[in-house]
């Protein structure tokens, strides 16, 4: 759990399943100190044969380009498997980083886990 007063970079990772997707739920900050944990999580799931991943950033308080790099890396890792890496996020502060960098064009971004299941049929 992330203490709102926490003054240290902490990233907690949880998993859930939603339809065909494995949802990687992040809570905390994604920066150069914690990004490795996310990289490992994605790699592990791909190695387990999960090729439909959704990274849930709803509870992420901070994300910088190191975090973006890990997400792009995940996409590349899934490519040979014809996989998918969706982003779940409705936090404007995080979304604008995707917008500024142009990455919103590369990821499919859903405002919530609900939206992921709803549009699954048509993706």
């Amino acid at each position: 759990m992330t203490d709102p007063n926490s003054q240290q970079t902490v990233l907690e990772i949880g998993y859930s399943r939603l339809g065909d997707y494995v949802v990687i739920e992040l809570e905390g900050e994604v920066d150069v100190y914690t990004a490795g944990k996310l990289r490992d999580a994605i790699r592990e799931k791909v190695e387990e044969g999960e090729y439909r991943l959704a990274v849930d950033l709803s509870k992420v308080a901070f994300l910088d380009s190191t975090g973006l790099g890990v997400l792009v890396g995940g996409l590349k890792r899934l490519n040979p498997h014809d996989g998918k890496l969706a982003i779940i996020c409705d936090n404007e502060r995080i979304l604008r980083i995707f917008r500024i960098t142009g990455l919103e064009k590369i990821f499919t971004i859903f405002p919530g886990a609900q939206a992921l299941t709803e549009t699954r049929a048509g993706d």
Partner: protein
Amino acid sequence: MACSAGGVIRLDMPSSPRYVSLARLVVSAVARGLDFSEESIDDLKIVVSEICTNAIIHCEPRREEQRIQLICCPRPGALTVEVRDSGQGFDPSCVGTFEEGLAAGKGFGIPLVRSLVDEFELESDHGKGTVVRVTKYDRLPESPPGPR
């Protein structure tokens, strides 16, 4: 740098990923002390995170004793932040664009910094390290800066 509020705030810390969050914390506190908007504070957190991350990960030789410095120079309505490392330096003309970043899946750092600040200066000397200096003016939420 002509700072008001009694001068600069300097944070000198080990060149280690674990301390990037400390640099963000210090810049947020200084910006909050200037009554910057939450949006401007968010921008500064990203900016400092990017610059410090570069200073740390591109710092060769990567020794325990390498250090980085964050220097905050507050003025009413403006904050200048400087990050110094003593790494190997680099050729600033190699810095890419968002488009190149999208192709490579990396290299978003400096373009992102540029898009979030009002003034950007980079001095880098091979063998002597790098100084990045940015200035951010606080704005009312009604007139958001940069591309978004």
